[in-house]
């Protein structure tokens, strides 16, 4: 049953390892096999699988060290975007990792169906970006993001739920020793998905994961590989200077904003990609806010001259400054300014503007989402207020932009290049606080700046939006008061 190259005794169903009974082998891969298991004690809170490495010739460093790395990193991770770690088995006996079995399917299965609908590509991209942001916040870069390493929990109504990242055999934890650093003379990763900096032996940049996600989205949107599947180092290095065929050349109905996002992910320079997975998720969820550069309309690859210039530049290039995953996530926060442009006093609006300016100044990588909420009546759905509603909507947007003007100017937030750092959103909701909280959750917002109603009378009558936001949102909240 196990391959004849295996040096350990073949495993069979019914066998007990580390207190877990092997039920059924569910997968046999080149590096490891997976078994459905249950604990002998019979008190499993979760369905479980056991991952058992295939040790070829007993001494294969790729498998052995990769497994060592996964045994070290997986137990430190938590949350819905990783399988929950349960137990590990020593190399002295039977090396293994027991973890939560994810019920859903791997993205690998959808790859064969590519090109997918644009809506599905965007949904998949958003979910993976959110999962990556959660991972990066836990100080870990995955470094092997690809369809077969992404699973989706089952969602409601047969939809896909949260993305789950699996296989941490190449991952790097910024606060733990990197056991792989010295082990190999060749770049480590999966050839089609490996970032240019991984090709240059950098194993610490979280933006490498965004590149790999970009390759994945490119494939899902076009059905083609962005950089082929090279088998030599020279072939891998080509992505340092050769840009991919723009997705719209292969798929004309790919919207310009999606091409903008994908090509930005695939930029050879990590400084020109999104600076955090949350910012990528934000763009995917707010397509009308994506600033389109020349990337968006490109129909062909760069010419020979430009490629040659980049080839020379790549020759002696060393990757520049390095950030740890959590540093980068913290350096590139998303700040939400919840502005009651219609009702707040001028003094409060000014105070809020100054506070937002201070917050934005401290972090050059910060992005600002300005949000106004248009209060709708719960029962007004079928009332003939369409035209009135839409003019109200536009009016709020105009006021919101007017409010932000001093900020945009003094912080140069709206340079006409790729780095749009400010976006404007008018939400329509019956419950203002709930709408702000939901927007913040959905867009991985780090910091909300909100004004407090000045009149205590009004507060008593209407309730305090800011109080509810402080109590219920998961992020930092600054409540601004006007000092009069």
């Amino acid at each position, binding site marked *: 049953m196990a391959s004849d190259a295996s040096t350990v005794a073949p495993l069979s169903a019914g066998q007990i390892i580390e207190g877990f009974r092997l039920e059924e082998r569910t997968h046999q891969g080149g590096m490891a096999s997976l078994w459905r298991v249950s604990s002998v004690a019979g008190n499993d809170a979760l369905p479980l699988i056991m991952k058992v490495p295939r040790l070829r010739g007993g001494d294969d460093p790729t498998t052995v060290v990769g497994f060592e790395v996964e045994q070290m990193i997986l137990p430190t991770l938590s949350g819905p975007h990783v399988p929950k770690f349960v137990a590990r088995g020593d190399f*002295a006996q039977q090396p293994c990792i027991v973890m939560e079995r994810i019920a859903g399917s791997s993205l690998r299965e959808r790859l064969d169906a590519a090109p997918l609908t644009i809506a599905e590509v965007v949904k998949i991209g958003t979910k993976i970006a959110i999962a990556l942001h959660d991972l990066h916040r836990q100080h870990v870069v995955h470094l092997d993001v690809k369809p077969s390493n992404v699973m989706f929990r089952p969602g409601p109504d047969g939809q896909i739920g949260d993305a789950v990242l699996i296989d941490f055999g190449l991952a790097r934890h910024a606060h733990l020793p990197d056991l792989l650093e010295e082990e190999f003379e060749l770049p480590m990763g999966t050839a089609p998905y490996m970032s240019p900096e991984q090709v240059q032996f950098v194993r610490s940049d979280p933006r490498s994961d965004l590149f790999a996600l970009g390759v994945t989205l490119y494939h899902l949107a076009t059905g083609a590989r962005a950089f082929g599947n090279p088998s030599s180092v020279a072939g891998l290095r080509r992505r340092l200077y050769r840009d991919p065929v723009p997705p719209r050349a292969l798929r004309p109905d790919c919207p310009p904003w999606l091409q903008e996002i994908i090509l930005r992910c695939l930029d050879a320079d990590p400084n020109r990609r999104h600076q955090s997975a949350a910012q990528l998720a934000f763009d995917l969820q707010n397509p009308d806010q994506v600033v389109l550069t020349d990337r968006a309309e490109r129909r062909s690859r760069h010419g020979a001259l430009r490629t040659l210039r980049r080839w020379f530049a790549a020759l002696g290039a060393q990757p520049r400054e390095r950030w740890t995953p959590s540093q980068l996530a913290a350096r590139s926060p998303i700040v939400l300014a919840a502005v009651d442009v219609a009702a707040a006093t001028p003094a409060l609006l000014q105070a809020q503007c100054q506070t937002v300016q201070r917050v934005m100044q401290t972090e050059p990588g910060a992005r600002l989402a300005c949000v106004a909420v248009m209060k709708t009546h719960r029962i007004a759905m079928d009332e003939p207020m369409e035209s009135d509603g839409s003019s109200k909507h536009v009016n709020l947007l105009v006021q919101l932009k007017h409010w932000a003007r001093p900020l945009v100017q003094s912080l140069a937030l709206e340079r006409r290049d790729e780095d749009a750092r400010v976006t404007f959103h008018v939400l329509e909701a019956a419950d203002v606080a709930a709408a702000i909280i939901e927007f913040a959750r959905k867009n991985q917002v780090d910091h909300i700046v909100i004004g407090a109603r000045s009149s205590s009378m009004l507060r008593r009558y209407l309730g305090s939006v800011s109080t509810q936001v402080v109590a219920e949102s998961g992020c930092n909240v600054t409540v601004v008061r006007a000092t009069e």
Partner: protein
Amino acid sequence: MNLALITDLHANREAVESVMAHAEREGAQRYAFLGDFVGYGADPGWVVDLVRAEVKRGAIAVMGNHDAAVVKGPTPTMTAPARQVVGWTRDQLNGAQRDFLASLPLVMTDADRLFVHANAFAPTEWAYVLGRMEAIRSLHSTHCRFTFCGHVHEPKLFHLAPTGKAGDFTPVPGVPIALSPQRQWLAIPGSAGQPRDGNPAACYAMFDTGSATLTFHRVPYDHEAAGVKIRAAGLPQSLAERLVDGE
């Protein structure tokens, strides 16, 4: 079992008190003192008494080069301020304290753990484990999976794979590191009594022998007070200053 690893205490009572209190809060069940109990600081007697009392209760303690110098006279390679302190320290210690230092072993082992002040390849020559080459040399000299040493004042963790590849790592305080059973490890907790990595907070590490998990800690302490005592004792001014800078 939680084993607290404390090294290069250097007669710094304020630092050692803070480290011991922190280790107790962290659930230390046993202590290992990796040498250099004296030298540089103003409280050699107090620190030697503390280590002696802990050894009576089962602690591990090995001899450092400063301890050896107080017993046998300074070595030729010692810096001028260090030599000056050796003479002063000798006068501060009573016979029992000096006898205790003289009785310390250079190396101790316990299960798969080796304790030594400088390195495992030539413990009496006090060569520093400054990089991977020395770490490999030290790990090759022992069958123990874990080597704990001091002498180098900056915290560091080295590892050696069966393939012969070694790595080094500057630990992040407070982050538990599961030491893989697949390789050998050499850990330098960093100096409790005279940190030198730019951070004045005292260093030590905690090793959970059951899960082979190592956590490096930094403990802030009243280094101003320790510096005042050094000046009051007439010891070199520079020794007080470096406690403030942690350099």
